[in-house]
C-alpha cells in the first residue's frame, strides 16, 4: 500500500542510518582532531607566534592594552595558564582577574563584587557553563571578563578611563561609552543604559567639583601659609583625589551604591569641610597673633 512501510524496509533504513551515523562521527572527529590545539605546555612567545597567525587582531588588541603595556605585564599565560587545557574557561572566571587586581577587598574588585551583578555571580557561578563565549548574554550576569573582554576582545583598556579623573578627554569618553553600551545592551534596554550613562557622567562631575573646590582653596591658601602649615589640609585633598573621587567612578562603573555614596560623595563632603576648617583655623590663629602684637606694640 502506498505510504505504508514494511518491516524489512524499516530495518533497511535503520541500517542505513547507523552506517551514515558512524560515517558522520569519523568525519567530524577527524576534523576536530586536526583543529584541536596542540597538547603540552608553552611559554608566552610560543603562544604569540602561533596565535598571531590564527588571529592577529586578537594579539594586536592585547598588545595595545594596559595588560601588555603596563608593568607587571599580564601575558597569555597569566590568565590562560601554560597549556590548552581549559585555557579559555579558566581565563573567563573572575578569580583569574582578582588575584592581580588587589584581591576581594580592593575597591576595584569590591565595588563590582557588591553590585547586583557581582552578588548574583557569586551565588550562581558554579552552575554556569564557562565554556560559552563572553557574549549574547550567555551568562546571567557579567563577570569582569564579560564586560572588559566582551566577545573575546583582548583590549581590556577599551572601557577604562584615564586614571587622572580630573583631566577628561571627550573623545576617549565617547569611545568608552560606545564600547560599554554594546555590552549592556545584551540585557538592558537602550533607554535605561543611556540614562544611566548620562546620570553617571553628572554624578562624577559633581564629585570633581568638590575636588576642584578643595584644590582652589589650597591654591589660595598657599599664598598665605607655609607648606608645613597646610600639610594636614593637603593630605585630605590628596585623599579626595586618589581615594574618594576614584570610588565614585568605580561605583558608577560597577553599579555599586556603596561606592557612589558611602565611600564616595559624603566622604568627599567631609574632607572638603575639614580642609575649609583647617585653613580657617590658621586664619584665626594669625588674626589673634596679629592683634596681640598690635596690643604689645601699643
Amino acid at each position: 500500500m502506498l505510504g505504508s512501510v514494511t518491516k524489512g524496509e524499516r530495518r533497511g533504513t535503520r541500517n542505513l542510518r547507523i552506517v551514515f551515523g558512524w560515517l558522520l562521527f569519523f568525519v567530524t572527529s577527524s576534523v576536530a582532531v586536526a583543529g584541536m590545539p596542540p597538547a603540552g605546555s608553552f611559554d608566552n612567545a610560543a603562544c604569540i607566534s602561533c596565535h598571531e597567525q590564527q588571529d592577529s587582531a586578537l594579539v594586536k588588541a592585547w598588545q595595545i592594552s594596559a595588560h601588555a603595556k603596563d608593568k607587571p605585564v599580564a601575558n597569555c599565560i597569566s590568565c590562560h595558564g601554560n597549556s590548552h587545557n581549559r585555557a579559555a574557561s579558566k581565563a573567563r572566571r573572575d578569580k583569574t582577574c582578582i588575584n592581580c587586581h588587589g584581591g576581594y577587598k580592593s575597591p576595584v574588585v569590591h565595588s563590582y563584587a557588591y553590585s547586583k551583578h557581582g552578588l548574583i555571580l557569586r551565588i550562581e557561578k558554579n552552575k554556569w557553563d564557562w565554556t560559552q563565549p563572553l557574549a549574547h548574554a550567555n551568562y546571567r550576569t557579567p563577570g569582569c571578563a564579560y564586560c572588559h573582554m566582551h566577545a573575546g576582545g583582548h583590549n581590556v583598556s577599551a572601557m577604562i578611563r584615564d586614571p587622572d579623573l580630573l583631566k577628561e578627554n571627550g573623545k576617549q569618553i565617547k569611545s568608552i561609552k560606545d564600547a560599554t553600551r554594546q555590552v549592556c545592551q545584551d540585557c538592558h534596554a537602550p533607554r535605561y543604559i543611556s540614562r544611566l550613562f548620562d546620570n553617571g557622567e553628572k554624578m562624577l562631575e559633581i564629585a570633581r567639583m568638590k575636588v576642584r573646590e578643595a584644590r582652589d582653596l589650597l591654591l589660595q591658601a598657599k599664598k598665605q601659609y607655609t607648606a608645613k602649615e597646610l600639610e594636614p589640609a593637603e593630605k585630605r585633598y590628596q585623599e579626595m583625589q586618589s581615594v574618594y573621587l576614584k570610588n565614585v567612578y568605580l561605583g558608577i562603573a560597577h553599579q555599586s551604591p556603596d561606592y557612589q555614596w558611602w565611600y564616595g560623595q559624603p566622604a568627599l563632603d567631609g574632607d572638603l569641610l575639614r580642609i575649609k576648617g583647617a585653613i580657617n583655623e590658621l586664619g584665626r590663629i594669625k588674626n589673634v597673633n596679629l592683634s596681640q602684637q598690635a596690643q604689645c606694640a601699643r
Partner: protein
Amino acid sequence: MKTKKVRYIWIPIIVILIAVPAGFYYVNWSESGAGAGLYSRDWSPAAIFAYWDPDDFYKSVKTMTGVYKGKQCVSCHEAITPGIVKDWRKSRHSKAKKVVYCSDCHGHDHQNLHLPTPKICGGCHTTEHADFEGEKRFGFPSHALAMDRALDAKHFVDKPKAEVTACLQCHSVATKCDSCHTRHLFSVAEARRPEGCITCHSGPPHPDDETYFGSKHGQIYLAEGDSWDWSKPLRKGNYKVPTCAYCHMNRSKHQVAEKSIWKFGLKQVNPLTSGNEVKREKWVKLCSDCHKPDWARQQLTKMDTERKHAWKKLYAAESVLKDLRRKGQLFPSAKQRPPYPTDSEDAFFQIERIGFFEGQASAFYNISPIERDYFNMWYFDNLGAYKGAAHGDAVFVRKGHAAMDSDLENIRRNANVLRTLSEAEKKVGIKPKADAFWKHGEYTDYNREHN
C-alpha cells in the same frame, strides 16, 4: 452664663473646620510639585529616577507603536535584549501552567508600557504583597516605607539629583520587587541568601554583611552555604544556620520591621517597653528554633547593654558639642555657613543642630568639622558596633567601641582648640572671622542652585 459657654464652643469648632481642610490642602499642594513627597515643589527628578520609582516618574517610551501578545514580545526581544529573555525562560513565570508573559506585567500596548510595581506583582502574589503593605504600620525604618524615607530626607531634597541617585537605587526596595528577586528570573532562592540583601545592607552605617559574615552563623554559611538546598522555605530545621532572611523574614513573611526593637540605631530606645517585650519574645521564639530560650534572652540583653554603653559615649560627645554651642564657640556658626538642607538663608532663627532629634542626620555637609566628627562617630562607628552586637560579631563590637572612644577623645581635643581660640579672640577683642569660602566655592554654589 450658660449661653456664653455655648457660644464659645463655636470657636474651636470653626478653627477645626478651617484647619483640617487647610491641612489637607497644604499637604496636597506640597506633594504636587515636579518631584515627589513632602518637598516635591523644591526639586525636580533626574531622568534615571523613573527606573527606581516607576509609580512617580516612569513614562512609557513612545518610539514603538503596536499592541502585542506575549509570544510576540518574546520573539522580538530575544534578538534585542537576549539576556532578559534567557532569564525569563529559566524563571517559574515561563514554566507555569498559565505562562506569565512580558505583557502580563508590562502591558500590551508598546506606547503605554509600565514597569512592574509591587502592586502589579501583588496581583498574583497576594499574600506577599499584603504582608509587604502591612509592614507600613511599623513605621520607619522598613522596606515598605523606604522610598518615602528617601524622598522626604532633607539632604536628598537639597543635593543635586545626580549626586543622590544611589539613595533611590537602594530605597527602591519599597517600589519594586526586583531589589531582592532580581529580574527576570525572580528567584525565591536568590532572595533567601545573604547575597540578595548585601548590595544595600553594607557600608559604614549598616555593615550587615561584615557583621553577619564575621559571626559564627555567617562563617558556617560561607563555608557550607553553597551546598544547601535553597528551595526550602525559611523555617525550623531547614537550614543549619540562619541567614538574613531566616531571621528577618522568617516563614517568608515580607515584614522585616516586624520584630525590630533598636531599629536603625540612630536614637536611643527603651528596650523594655511592653511593646518591645512582645517583640523580644518573638526573637526568643525564633532563636529557639536552635537555641535554648534562656540563652537567647541572655544574648538579647547583652545587646541592650552594648547599646547602653554606646549611648553613654554618644551623649558625652553631644554634651561637648552643646556646651560649645551654648557658649557660641562652634565655628563656623550656623549663620556663617550655607543654610541647612531645605532651610532658607535669611531664616530668623538659626541654630546648630546636634543629635537625631534636631535633624543632624541630614546635616553632614556645610557644617563645622567638629560636628562632622560627631556625625562620623554616631552614624558610622556607633552603628557598626550596634550591628556587630546584633549579628554576633564580637570583633566588630570591640572595633566600634574603640573607634568611638578615639572619636570622643578627638572631639574633646578639637573642642579645646575651639575654646582656646575663641577665648584668645575675646581677650584681644576680635570676632572670629569666617572665610568667604564657607558659603562659596564651585560645588557649594552648584549645590545651592541645583535641587
